């Protein structure tokens, strides 16, 4: 029951990391309508959100802020690494200012490869995440 309510109200945080945010915006648009899954881009507080979508390249400067944002989110919190750059460095992997391994900052639940991934791919990642939440142990 608790899992059901969690998986139907995933609110993503308003933080855009890099270029994949264009496809994140396209996913939130009317064609795919993620609101039927409970994803609402609420301009509310950070503490009410439970989904952090790391879109695209994470620079060292942004990584510090992402860690702060992640720690400010109330538990349970989930992370989706979107795009090749978030998964493993991607196109800019050898640049001097980026962080290649996002999973060293915080645990990642779902990886979505692509450059940028199609909005349908991101939505199917959200569906996978919901499956994962459904099967989660609430009191572990």
């Amino acid at each position, binding site marked *: 029951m608790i899992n059901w309510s969690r998986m139907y109200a995933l609110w993503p*945080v*308003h*933080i*855009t*990391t*890099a*270029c994949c*945010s*264009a*496809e994140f*915006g*396209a996913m*939130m*648009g*009317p*064609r795919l309508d993620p609101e039927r899954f409970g994803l609402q881009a609420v*301009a509310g507080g*950070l503490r009410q959100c439970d989904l952090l979508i790391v879109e695209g*390249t994470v*620079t060292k*400067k*942004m990584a510090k*802020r992402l860690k702060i*944002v992640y720690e400010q989110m109330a538990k349970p919190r989930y992370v989706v690494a979107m795009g090749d750059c978030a998964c493993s460095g991607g*196109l*800019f992997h*050898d*640049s*001097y*200012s*980026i962080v290649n391994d996002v999973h060293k900052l915080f645990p990642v639940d779902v990886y979505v490869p692509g*450059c*940028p991934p*199609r909005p349908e791919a991101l939505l199917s990642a959200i569906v996978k995440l919901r499956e994962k939440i459904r099967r989660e142990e609430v009191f572990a």
Partner: protein
Amino acid sequence: MTTTPDQTKPLAPPITITAAKEPSTLDVSVGPQHPGSGHMRILIRVDGDYIVSVDPDIGYVHRGCEKIAEYRTAVSNIPHLERPCIIDAIHLNWGYVLPIQELQGVVVPPRGQYISTIAAEMNRIMSHLYWLAINAGVFTGHTTIFMYAFGDRDLFIELAEMLTGARLTYSFLPPGGPRRDLPAEFQDRLLKLLDYFERRLVEYDRIFFSNPLVIARAKGIGTLKREEAIRLGLTGPVLRGSGVKYDVRKVEPYGAYADLDFEIPTFEEGDSYARFLVRFEEMKQSIKIIRQALEKMPKGPIARKAPLIIPEGEAIGRVESSRGELAYMVKGDNSDKPSRVKIMNGSFRSLIAFPYLLRNVHVADLPVIYGSLDYWPLEADR
């Protein structure tokens, strides 16, 4: 407590936060995580409800594109240099190959120029729709236009996918000309879409541009006078919203623009609402350009084979991207990798408008002014 700023005192120095703090001020960080969400931070010093001075803090998406460009071959640089402004990728691509073609002495055939022009104008419409949805819509709190604009943008993206094979990152213009010719039903579908989109623009006017709430929020806010816009070296719709009729497509025509008939929308007032209207009118002009280009499209080859080596020398090429003039300086040294690529884009040049416009305004005017400048942090940071 002060309710209005003292207009007789000289304004704080425009660029940095003054070291001597007034006791009534508070430093606030409008950080990378905020409801409008752009990946840059603006440190503002507020006195009550008025912003006294502003310090933009950028670099959150600095990926070292110029350094990477020296380590990749000229052609494989194209995906890298497209990513800074992913929603406007054709212009970033085109601006990069123009100096390379100049150094190599390659001339793109006319059909290739027309195809590049059509793709570029489609990109301009897509980029302006994204601006309308997020920067003008969500920043001012108008989320309906977000849904409308993104819905229409997806239709253009479908057509771009039909033409180039990718949704956003086309890599469509290697040196020498476009990669592919127009597919069979592309022309009919595009013309139908343009007819539909023209009707939609009337809707947008009704719900957004003539909306009294939007007018109340944007008219008279963030006024940039003509002389200041010239002195600060601004470009693009920001410049044209302040009365300067300057567009690289007319000043130094590239592609097929010399043969096409279109206007440069310019507004005199210089406030945020004028900048909104410039982009709205530009979308209408883009429709006109695409229709003419499809009609006048010549037959023939679309591309010439270009060598893989960049000869020795230095060249500058520029295009008019959605955010302003985009100039590339490419320096070659007879190898397949460029020895220096310098990117000068509209967003980085708009950075100086932030401390200038965001003085003595309410805090609530910050998103409106920020949205009207159409600052794309990825492009400025490269």
